């Protein structure tokens, strides 16, 4: 069953006077099956972040539709959008976006508090999640007291605590050192194996080879895609690299 579907998504940015137009996304079509781990790759300026913002309901497409479990995003009113996001989507950002004024625990609990979950239920959800992410001993600390990797794992916990249908990650390893990156990506794989659908935007090949499928975006369209299938990480790494090289050389071949 496809959990997320993008149909003919187009996004045009206009400047204030409206004379100059920039087409960020020209025609995006793809779908994500439940339980998939999809990486979206592309160069800077290829429209990755625009796409993710649209998938996250933070931005609206100029035309085209996004379906989450057959529910059309564009039909959701502005008022309900925040609640929709809270209940259905989880986010992990490059720069963590943790609130300095909250402890890690409170940062993680924030979405639950906003949807009015009783405190007991919150704790029941928090403990196993924190333990699985290895941050259970840090819960009373503040973001400025922990490392980047620990911050990002906190952000992952915050994204997962609502049991979202879809986890969206925007360059989650962008601000991490290589060791922390690997640890985080392994965690993503583990979560994915437990059944969590993940869509991750990245330009790191290292990160992308943890995914079960990689979509390549170029000039506002889905240019190419690679399935991991049964290949090993090294083979996947090689395949992605090849695809990127051919994209850069402007090659037309589709394998």
């Amino acid at each position, binding site marked *: 069953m496809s959990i997320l579907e993008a149909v003919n998504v187009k996004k045009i940015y206009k400047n204030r006077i409206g004379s100059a137009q920039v087409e960020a996304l020209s025609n995006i079509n793809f779908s994500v099956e439940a339980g998939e781990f999809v990486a979206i790759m592309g160069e800077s300026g290829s429209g990755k972040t625009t796409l993710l913002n649209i998938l996250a309901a*933070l931005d609206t497409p100029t035309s085209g539709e996004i379906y989450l479990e057959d529910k059309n995003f564009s039909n959701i009113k*502005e*008022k309900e*959008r*925040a*609640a929709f*996001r*809270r209940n259905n989507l989880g*986010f992990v*950002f490059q720069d963590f*976006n*943790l*609130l*300095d*004024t*909250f402890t890690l625990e*409170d940062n993680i*609990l*924030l*979405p639950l*508090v*906003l*949807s*009015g979950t009783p*405190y007991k239920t*919150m704790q029941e959800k928090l403990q196993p999640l924190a333990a699985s992410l290895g941050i259970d001993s840090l819960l009373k600390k*503040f973001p*400025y007291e922990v490392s980047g990797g620990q911050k990002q794992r906190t952000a992952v916990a*915050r994204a997962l605590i609502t049991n979202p249908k879809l986890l969206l990650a925007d360059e989650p390893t962008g601000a991490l050192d290589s060791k922390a990156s690997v640890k985080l990506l392994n965690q993503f794989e583990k979560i994915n194996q437990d059944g969590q659908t993940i869509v991750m935007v990245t330009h790191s090949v290292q990160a992308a080879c943890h995914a079960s499928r990689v979509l390549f975006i170029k000039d506002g369209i889905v240019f190419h895609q690679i399935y991991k299938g049964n290949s090993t990480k090294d083979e996947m790494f090689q395949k992605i690299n090849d695809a990127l090289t051919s994209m850069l050389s402007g090659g037309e071949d589709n394998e």
Partner: protein
Amino acid sequence: MNKHIYRRLAATNLKKNFKIYLPYLLTVIGSILFYYILTSLGINSFLYDINSKKETFYGARTLCTILKTGSTVSYLFALIFLFYANSFVLKHQKKQLGLYRVLGMERRHLIRIILLETVSLFSIGLLVALFFGIFLDKLVLVLLFQILHQTAPEGFYINTSAISSTLLLTGLVAGLIVIRGVFSILRTKDIDLLKSEKKGEREPKNRFLLAIAGVILLGIGYYYALTSHSVNQALTTFFPAALCVILGTYALFTAGSIAILKLLKKNKKYYYSTRHFISLSGMLYRMKQNAVGLSNICILSAAAIVVISAGVCLYSNGNRSIAQQFPRAVQYSIANQPSQATLEEILETTVTNHKLSYEDMVCIHYGNMLGELKGNTLLPDIPLTINLESFPDIYLLTLEEYNRFNHSSETLGENEILLYDSDDILKEDTLIFKDTTYRVKDTANKECLSYISNYSMSLFPKFLIVVPDTNTFDSFLKSSTGFAAFDGGITYLGFDMNDSVKDVKAFATAYSDALTAQNIANDITLKSDEEDFFYATYGGLFFVGIVLGALFLVCTVMIIYYKQISEGYEDRERFLIMQKVGLSKKEIKQSINSQVMLLFLLPLIAAILHAAVALNIVADALSLVMIVHMPTFIASVAIVCVLFSVVYGIVYKITSREYYGIVNE
């Protein structure tokens, strides 16, 4: 390096950070303007000519002293506020300067930029303030004369001595601010220069002891204020009480608020609910950063409310107070114990000569002495150190005179007296004087005191003693030391006249001369003179109160503005994150609103509470100079509170818009 570059950098800095510098500039202009106006009125030949030592009206010299004191006070406050405003600007400046530092400037270059910025800002401020000051000078003078019930002088003038004093003191402030800026730059590391805007992320510590100290201090201050029951007590306890309240306010705002918030946070059920979660931790950080600013606002507002309403009360209560202190238009204190018949006879003659008439004549013969009360023994000697509370100002009346005045028919046995004791200092019902024990038969009617009591003695408690006969009266007076002139007692004579001030004056002098011709020593008090003096003094105080109140208000406005702006910049990031995590704009706005409203109301409510508690002690202190009519005083405090809240609210609305603009940018 090119010399012009500093000027250009300073200029761009000023232009780019308009939002930060404009209110600073306005504060500079405002404080210079207030100082200039008070100084210019204080040294003004239209009021008091220093060279010829001539007063324009009775009391003008006192008025000038009050105005000069006012200008000194305004200067001190302006100094504090400009430093405070400067700290906001400096925080902002540092980031910019840090960038220049990274780009390769040396510290001395930064100092030059700071110097240029400060000098140009103060020069602009000074020019604008003096421009308005010179124009407003005359207008304010006319206003002042209006308040004083005097006719304003004509002619335009430029007060050079006020201008030069303003120039000098502004230069001094600017110099101090430059020195402070230089020190702060020399002390900070480059990396901190860049980051100086991003500080204070740690959760505030819980300082229970300070919070408790705050409660105790506030309690002591409030206790003093509420329990004051005499001028004397008010004057001795006012400053300690005010100090306790100020310190208590600081302690409670800084530590108390955090203690309460932390306590609420500990209650998991309360904390982890949608309504409280964000607000509670938001408040915790806001209080950490703003506690001092909020206490400043609170104390300033309380001071402004008290000062303005005391001024309003003094002024609006003036006529009533004068009427009570001087119940008749013309009053005499007459020595030599002439009979009432003699006095009236001479009065009739003078009246006939002047073709005038008088009415409501009051004549009382009384004795006045001081003494020290020890237990229930009254000692006639004046000790070297006077304890005001056991040192009554004593008025003596014979029973005959008392009954005549009150149209009563009291009787007293031997060694019996009637006593009125204003401060209840005699705890027993007997009074021992010169080895004789007098029994206090009853409380005396105090009405005659309004004629005979000396208002300059208002600090002392008052005794009215009615003695059975002339012998006792004399024995009391004869044994008192130091007031030999009043040995035989004094006669009060007062009457009203319906003629022009000039005629009344001429008549009063003529009568006094006629008495003197008969060897009757006397002293005139004219109500019209006292009115002049009253309005000159208290009209002046009222004026200074209003100007200082306005200055406090300007400073409060400035603090609120800077608070909102600096918070706006800090909150922006947090709200962006919350939006990403799944908070709708509406929810965010609600959460901001509730926090901001609370922060807005907290100092205002505390200030009004302080002012309300201060009512009692301030009224007591005011009764040193006037008879305070409590309903008038309460009404003036209430009106000032309402007006103040309205102005505060408007300012708040305007600055809030600025805040939302920044947050939603």
